[in-house]
């Protein structure tokens, strides 16, 4: 029962943050509501017993990635977004489509609850499941090669970011 209450409260906060992201016109407000979404998602992960993932969610997503976003918003001095012709077309075509698909998916999922293919509840275990020890044992044995490949991916991403964001050679020479 307590789990259900906690789930509902943080699911509501999560959806409210996501809707607020859409409604705000200034990017800094959108970024802050995205932080709210990520924080409440971390609580949902904790409810599911995923301690390591919840910690990483707060540190990497709500911490590092969002700091990057807020930094770029402030660096570029982004203002209110303006509405144009393109946004009207996407409003007319996109919103009904997205709504229809979402309602269909939610209806199918909730209907399966009472049918023969019921997904059932998530079992609550007493012993820790998904702590750093369990996850790292899996990560460094079975998933060692993908782990090393992602480290190369991050290295390439860092180099790409530096190359892309660096001032062009001619421009920096002109200023000095």
């Amino acid at each position, binding site marked *: 029962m307590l789990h259900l209450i906690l789930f509902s409260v943080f699911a509501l906060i999560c959806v409210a943050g996501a809707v607020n992201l859409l409604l705000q016109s200034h990017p800094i407000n959108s970024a802050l509501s*995205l932080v709210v979404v990520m924080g409440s998602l971390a609580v949902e992960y904790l409810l599911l017993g995923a301690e390591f993932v919840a910690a*990483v969610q707060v540190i990497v997503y709500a911490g590092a990635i969002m700091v990057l976003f807020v930094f770029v918003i402030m660096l570029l001095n982004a203002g209110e977004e303006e509405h*144009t012709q393109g946004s009207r077309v996407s409003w007319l075509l996109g919103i009904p489509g997205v709504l229809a698909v979402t309602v269909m998916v939610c209806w199918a999922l909730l209907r399966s609850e009472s049918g023969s293919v019921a997904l059932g509840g998530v079992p609550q275990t007493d012993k820790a499941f998904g702590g750093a020890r369990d996850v790292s044992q899996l990560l460094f044995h079975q998933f060692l090669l993908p782990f090393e490949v992602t480290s190369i991916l991050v290295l390439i991403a860092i180099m790409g970011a530096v190359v892309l964001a660096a001032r062009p050679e001619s421009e920096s020479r002109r200023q000095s």
Partner: protein
Amino acid sequence: MVPLSYYLVLSAILFACGVTGFLIKRNIITIFMSIELMLNGVNLSFVAFAAKWHALSGHVFVFFVMVVAAAEAAVGLAIIIALFRTRETLNIDQVNLLKL
């Protein structure tokens, strides 16, 4: 006990919010944040299924998704900075060189 389908519905709603933001927003940074929202929605269903079937590999996949999202954010924001330097705008309607 919370039914698994509730988690999946929350994940679907988050993903739909991300898609909607991707469609209706004109500011390139907000569009980028909508993509992060979609990734978060997918992560939630990964963790929910992992808890349901007691399979830890779901958590490892979430870990990989986070790494890819971090790499994507770094490169994407660098592209936005480079774009702003040449075009002086963040509105995607004015970034249309590849459009027919």
